[in-house]
C-alpha cells in the first residue's frame, strides 16, 4: 500500500512552528501547572478536601470569584460605552482618553493599589464624598471590586475597539431604511455583531482580575474571611511554609478558572459561529 503523496502547504514551516509552539507552551505554562498538581497530590484527597473547605479558604475564593465577576461585568458595560465613544465620535481630547485606557496595563499594580487606596480612603478625594452616604470603599469587598474593575478596563476596551471599527455604516443604514429604530438597530444588528468580542474582553478582564494581587492588597485590608482574596491567601500560606495548603488553593483556583474560561469560550464560539464562518 502506498501513502498518498504528501501535500505541500503554501506556507512552509508548519512542523517547525508547531513544534516550537508546543515546547514553548510546555515550558511556560504546562510544566509549571503539572508541578502544581503533583505537589498538591502529596496532600492526598482528604487533605486537599479539608484544606479547600476551610471557611477562610472558601470565603477567599468566594470573594475572588465574586469580585472578579462583578468587576468584569462592570467593565463589559462601561468598557463598551467607552469603546463606543472612542470609535464613533470625534471630539477634542479623544486621543488623550484613548491613551489613558492603557494606564492600568502600564502602571505597576502596587502603584495603582496605593493610588486607589489614597483616593478612596475616608480622607481621600473620593472617599470623602462617599463617607456621608455611608459607603466605605477601603477595607471592604467594595474596595476589592473597585481595584479589579480598574485593572480590567483596558481588556474590554481594547478587544471591542476593532470590532466596533469593523461595523459597516451601510448595515446600520440598511436597518434604518427597513424601518428599524435606533434601539432596534442596536439590539438586533450591532450587538449580535460585537458579542464575540465583548465575551473575549469579559473573559480576559475576568481572568486578569482573578489573578490580580498587587492593586488589591492595599485597598482590601486583607481581613481573613472578609476582604482576603484567594491569591493573597496563597501567599500567606507560603509565608507560613504551608506549601501543600498553598498548592491546594492554587489547584482549586486553577480548576475553577479553567472551567469558567472554557464556558466563556464555548459561548463565544456559539455566538460567533455564524457570521465568522468562511467570510
Amino acid at each position: 500500500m502506498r501513502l498518498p503523496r504528501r501535500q505541500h502547504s503554501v506556507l512552509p514551516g508548519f512542523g517547525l512552528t508547531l513544534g516550537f509552539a508546543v515546547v514553548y507552551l510546555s515550558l511556560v505554562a504546562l510544566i509549571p501547572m503539572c508541578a502544581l498538581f503533583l505537589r498538591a497530590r502529596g496532600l492526598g484527597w482528604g487533605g486537599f478536601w479539608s484544606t479547600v473547605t476551610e471557611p477562610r479558604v472558601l470565603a477567599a475564593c468566594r470573594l475572588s470569584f465574586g469580585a472578579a465577576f462583578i468587576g468584569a461585568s462592570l467593565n463589559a458595560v462601561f468598557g463598551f460605552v467607552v469603546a463606543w465613544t472612542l470609535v464613533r465620535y470625534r471630539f477634542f481630547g479623544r486621543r488623550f482618553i484613548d491613551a489613558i485606557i492603557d494606564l492600568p496595563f502600564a502602571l505597576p499594580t502596587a502603584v495603582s493599589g496605593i493610588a486607589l487606596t489614597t483616593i478612596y480612603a475616608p480622607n481621600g478625594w473620593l472617599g470623602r464624598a462617599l463617607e456621608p452616604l455611608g459607603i466605605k470603599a477601603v477595607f471592604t469587598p467594595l474596595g476589592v471590586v473597585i481595584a479589579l474593575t480598574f485593572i480590567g478596563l483596558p481588556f474590554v476596551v481594547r478587544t471591542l475597539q476593532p470590532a466596533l471599527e469593523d461595523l459597516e455604516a451601510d448595515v446600520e443604514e440598511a436597518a434604518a431604511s427597513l424601518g428599524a429604530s435606533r434601539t432596534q438597530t442596536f439590539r438586533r444588528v450591532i450587538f449580535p455583531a460585537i458579542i464575540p468580542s465583548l465575551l473575549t474582553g469579559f473573559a480576559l478582564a475576568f481572568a486578569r482580575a482573578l489573578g490580580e494581587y498587587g492593586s488589591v492588597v492595599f485597598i482590601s485590608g486583607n481581613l481573613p474571611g472578609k476582604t482576603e482574596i484567594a491569591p493573597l491567601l496563597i501567599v500567606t500560606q507560603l509565608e507560613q511554609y504551608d506549601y501543600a495548603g498553598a498548592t491546594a488553593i492554587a489547584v482549586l483556583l486553577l480548576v475553577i478558572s479553567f472551567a469558567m474560561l472554557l464556558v466563556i469560550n464555548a459561548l463565544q464560539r456559539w455566538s460567533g459561529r455564524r457570521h465568522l464562518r468562511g467570510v
Partner: protein
Amino acid sequence: MSITVENISKSYGTFQALRGVSLDIPDSKITALLGPSGSGKTTLLRIIAGLETPDDGSGPIRFHHEDVAGRRVQERRVGFVFQHYALFKHMTVFENVAFGLRVRPKHERPANEVIDRKVHELLGLVQLDGMAHRFPSQLSGGQRQRVALARALAVEPRVLLLDEPFGALDARVRKQLRAWLRRLHDEIAITTIFVTHDQDEALEVADRVVVMNEGRVEQAGAPEEVFHDPATEFVMNFLGHVNVFDGRIEDGKVTFASVQIEHPAAAESESGPARVFIRPHELSLHLLPRSDSLPATVTGIHAAGPAVRLTLAAEGEHTFSADISQDVYRALKVSVGGRFWVLPKDLRVFPGGGPDAGRL
C-alpha cells in the same frame, strides 16, 4: 409613486456634491442616475432615501404629492439596496428578508405564518428559495445582492433605490443581473431609481436616464434620446466612445479635418470655433472620394467582435476610430496602411472651442 425633487443642494465642507438639482422621476418606471464618480448621483439617491439631509434652502422632496423632506428614513418607506449588499451577517437569508417585518411596531407586525409565507414568496421572486437557511457568507456576490433586493422589497416600499447595485460583481454576473432586474421590474412595476457609472447598464435597463455631472443634471430623457440626441458635450462624451474634432462654423457650414459639411446646428449659429462629435458607428468607409468625406489612413484594426473597429489617421495626424461591419471589412479588404475616404453619416456640432466649451 412619482418622485419630484426641487432645487436640492448638498455640500460637504467646501465640496459641493449637488448644485440645485430639480428632477421628476416617473411613476412605475426604472430611472437611471448616470454619471462619473463625484457627479453627485449617489448623494441625490441618498437624499431621496433620507439617509442624507440636503442643505438649508433646498426645495421639497415629494413622493407623489407628499413632501417627505422632513421625514426620517424609517418613515419614508423606501427600499434601499447598497453596493456592498449590507446584509446582516449574523442572520440567515430568511431572517435578513424578514427583518423589515419583524421590527414593525407590535400592532402592525404580521403573524409569524404571514412573515413566513411572505419571505418565501420573495425568495421565490429572487430565485433563492432553497437558500433560506444559509448565511450571507455562504452565498455568491450575485446571490447576496438578490437577498438584499428581497429584503428591501419585503417592507413593500413605495420606491426602490439601488446604489450601484451591480458595482461589486464581475462582468458576467453583472450582465445577467441587469437583464434579470429588468424582467423583475416588468413583473412588479415599482418606481425604481438606480445609480450607475456604466452607460451600457443605464441604457439597457432604464426607461429613463438622467445624466449627471459635477452636481448638476446634464440631461434627462429616454435612453434613445440621450444617446442619439445628447444635449451637451458632456453627455455626448460620456455615453459611449466618440470622436472629437476641432473645427469652425462659417457661413452655415462646419469645417473640420479638411471637409466642409452643411449642418443645421451650423446654420443656426454664428461663425466661430466649434467642436464636432462623431460616433465610430456613424462613419462609413469608401474607396472613391466625395466632397463631404475626408481621406484617412488605417493605422489599427480590432476585428474580434460583432463589428470591426478601425483606428484611422486623418491629415494632420488626427486619429479617430470608425466601426464597420464584418461584411464591409471583408469587401473592402481593409488592411493597415490602406487609404480610404471616410464619410460622416451623422454628426453633432457644438459651437465654441476648447475642452469646456458648450457645457451648460
